[in-house]
């Protein structure tokens, strides 16, 4: 097994032998399930009226997409918590030398840490998706749109995870890493909203925002520019984390 997969697998194991991962999963599931059931209840009440409206919105628009949009907000909080100890915790526990002194390159260490944290985050996304998918047994869901939203959320979660890993590489204090990841993630997510508030609609600042690139996926639009944006952001953050480990070797 490759070094980074080994690190990833070990990190997943370490996460799930602690209560933290289970608590995060339980709280997220409870919160999303509550929202899901409230939306479902409201939908069932208006369904008879919707039947008489031509081109009315369905369960995908009224239940699934709002739920997934809420998930994107929740991920902003969950991801910094999932990534904060990835490298900062290793430094704090004096266990980073184990990885640095093994015959594994810095980028592979970072990639392993990224995959280890991403496994938990992706699991949250998958669980959230299972809720609207369960409705497919009783009604017609727009599966294509759900698939696009799933892809968008997984890419979005990947970018946030990479930012979290970069912050975790930057400091040896997990709490500081989480705070930095939260600030950077929120800033990137709210850039578009802030720019629009100032009347800027179609500029670079709007393009830089995470939400600008997530929204098309939630509407079922898969554009290569959005995929490239998320992959680029993920790569840049991971390279930054790798550079930080290079710096630790060079400067101690």
């Amino acid at each position, binding site marked *: *097994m490759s*070094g980074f997969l*080994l*690190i990833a697998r*070990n990190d997943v*194991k*370490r996460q799930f*032998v*602690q209560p933290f991962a289970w608590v995060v999963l339980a709280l997220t599931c409870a919160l999303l399930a509550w929202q899901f059931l409230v939306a479902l209840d409201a939908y069932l009440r208006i369904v008879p009226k919707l039947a008489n409206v031509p081109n009315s919105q369905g369960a995908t628009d009224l239940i699934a997409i709002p739920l997934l949009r809420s998930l994107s907000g929740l991920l902003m909080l969950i991801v910094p918590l999932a990534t904060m100890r990835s490298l900062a915790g290793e430094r704090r*526990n*004096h*266990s*980073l*030398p*184990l*990885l*640095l*002194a*093994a*015959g*594994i*390159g810095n980028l592979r260490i970072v990639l392993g840490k990224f995959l280890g944290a991403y496994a938990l985050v992706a699991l949250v996304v998958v669980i959230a998706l299972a809720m609207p998918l369960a409705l497919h047994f009783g009604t017609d869901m727009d599966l294509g749109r759900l698939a696009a939203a799933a892809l968008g959320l997984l890419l979005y979660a990947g970018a946030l995870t990479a930012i979290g890993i970069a912050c975790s590489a930057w400091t040896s204090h997990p709490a500081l890493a989480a705070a930095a990841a939260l600030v950077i993630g929120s800033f990137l997510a709210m850039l578009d909203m802030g720019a629009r508030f100032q009347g800027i609609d179609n500029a670079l600042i709007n393009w830089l925002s995470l939400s600008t690139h997530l929204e098309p996926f939630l509407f079922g639009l898969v554009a290569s520019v959005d995929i490239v944006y998320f992959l680029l952001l993920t790569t840049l953050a991971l390279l930054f984390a790798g550079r930080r480990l290079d710096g630790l*070797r*060079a*400067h*101690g």
Partner: protein
Amino acid sequence: MNIPAPVLSLSHVSRRLSGNTIVEDLSLDVPRGVVLGLLGVNGAGKSTTLRMMVGMLTPSTGTVFVEGRDLASHPQLARRGIGYLPEEPPLHGELTVEEYLRFCARLHGIGRDKVHQAVEQAIARCELGEMRHRLTSLLSKGFRQRVGLAQAIIHEPSLIVLDEPASGLDPIQALRLRELMRSMAKDCAVVLSTHVLSDVLACCDRVAILHRGRLRKTAPLSEIAALESEFVRIASESPSMESAA
């Protein structure tokens, strides 16, 4: 006479940090079968030297060779032959001793089919049998040190680097550790840093005395008749005396 090639070779290695010289022009060879004690007072540059030996820190100048491979040019290959125990054992507190050693074995490149054997051997050598199912976070200082040592030797490296391995151990544990180091040195080179003279006297073949980042003396232990007085003399030298020397 056939002189064996050194497992570890440091050639004019220096390390500067923020304008301060931590280690200066250090050259050193350690052949197989030798336990080298790196002796020095706190702040002498021992840990920095060890971290450069294992590739955790890049030298400002100079070269580190492990089994003839330049650690800077072939870092991953060279590091495979090194076992390192830092001053604080690098444990994963969430894992049991056995799980942790399995991970270390795989991390050091041991194939899946040989992991079990390697873990069993390391557990036996470090006498961890009774603790194998305990979480590493629940172990005493002595057992934590042993687990740290087990991860350093699990892949049978040709060079074992130990930073203050006996610190915090009780006399019995320290004695066991010394015996273990002696037995390990049969097949590889061992470098250990310490400021405890009795550690050096008990298990080292050679001693290198480091003071203010400079190698002040290196010789077989047998040639330093009064190691204690030599160490005290070097350690108490003022900077002006050093430059004169």
